[in-house]
């Protein structure tokens, strides 16, 4: 009887040890894999044109649209103070686009997950907050004497886009913050479905493109306003 118990205790002990060995080995390998996964970088190819370089001409176009207004020579019927206010707002937007630290990250050839997170932070602070929300979205509160029909043409477009852009990257940011939680993804998934670093980066680029397009549209509207077309 004693031998029988000893034998079963032996078997039970080895079974539990085997299970623990399996769990520990799984966790160890999984940690190596996870460590490799979170350190994945996104390398841009030689033919990859980043969104900042791609839009230098767009920024120049915005500048031209703004500079077509000179308060000293203006002979139109619109309120000059309002036009000066719009011009200064658009100027500030352009300087935000030009001076943001996000441009340094856009120009990098290789970006890591921390770079993408910093990129989102700079982009949200310098472009979304300082330009889109404060200057462009804030236009509707300051335009007082302009012909209301002129602004009504562009107001829904501004409001809609500014609202979307303001919370556009929140989920990407949350996703990046949460990259310490265990997750499974194979190389196949990373190439074809979702790669945290690459896809978050391209998502920021897409949002940046939408922001610059919004400012361009507002500058075009401003240009038409000065020319008396609307």
């Amino acid at each position, binding site marked *: 009887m004693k031998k029988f*118990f*000893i034998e079963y*205790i*032996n078997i*039970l*002990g*080895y079974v*539990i*040890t085997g*299970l*623990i*060995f399996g*769990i*520990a*080995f799984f*966790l*160890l390998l999984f*940690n190596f894999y996870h*460590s490799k996964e*979170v*350190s994945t970088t996104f390398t841009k190819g030689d033919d990859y044109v980043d969104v900042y370089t791609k839009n230098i001409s767009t920024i120049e176009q915005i500048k031209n649209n703004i500079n077509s207004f000179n308060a000293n020579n203006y002979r139109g019927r619109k309120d000059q103070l309002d036009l000066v206010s719009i011009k200064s707002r658009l100027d500030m937007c352009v300087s935000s686009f030009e001076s943001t630290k996000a441009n340094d990250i856009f120009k990098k050839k290789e970006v*890591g*997950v*921390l770079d993408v*997170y910093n990129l989102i932070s700079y982009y949200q602070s310098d472009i979304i907050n300082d330009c889109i929300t404060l200057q462009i979205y804030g236009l509707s509160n300051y335009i007082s004497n302009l012909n209301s029909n002129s602004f009504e043409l562009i107001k829904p477009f501004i409001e809609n886009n500014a609202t979307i852009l303001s919370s556009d990257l929140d989920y990407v940011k949350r996703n*990046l*913050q*949460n*990259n*310490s*939680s*265990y997750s499974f993804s194979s190389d196949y998934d990373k190439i074809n479905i979702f790669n945290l670093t690459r896809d978050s980066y391209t998502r920021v680029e897409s949002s940046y493109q939408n922001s610059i397009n919004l400012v361009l549209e507002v500058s075009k509207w401003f240009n038409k306003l000065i020319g008396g077309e609307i």
Partner: protein
Amino acid sequence: MKKFINIIFSFFKYVLLIVAFGITLFIILKLYTRLNKNLTDSINIFLPYFILLVLFVISICLSRDYVRNNIFFNITCCLVFSTNIIVCLRAIFDTNMLFNTIQKMGVNFNYFNDYLSFNKIMLYGLCIVNFLFLFIPNNEEEPIKEKIKIENVGNDSQNNKEDEVIIKKIELDDEII
């Protein structure tokens, strides 16, 4: 060779247990200081370490060679403690896990917390295994050879007892079959 490897693993088992306990204590102290929590609340995290240490000491004191020299058990212990240490080190030093970098807490508690339940399961499992193996006598591994050796000692001159030895050998062979 097997004995040499076993000695290494059985030595590292104790060293890694102490290191794993120390580094876990460091993280828990940091977390509890940050949250202004009483350290006595963390007793459930450290309890399996203490139990395991006590069981290790008991197996040394009782000279339970079956558990002390069990190479599979020793390797598993080393693996569990190594995993514990690696996870703790990643929680402190891995800057690619952004929670730590952004929050600037010094330790990625989010990641460490995910691991804690696994850690408890493994440590309590080791405690159970160590406890079970304490019941197994030291000579359990090679009982047959030793019995035969005992019978052979001092029986060379007594021919009538040689027959008994052969009979016992046959009985033992039957048991094996």
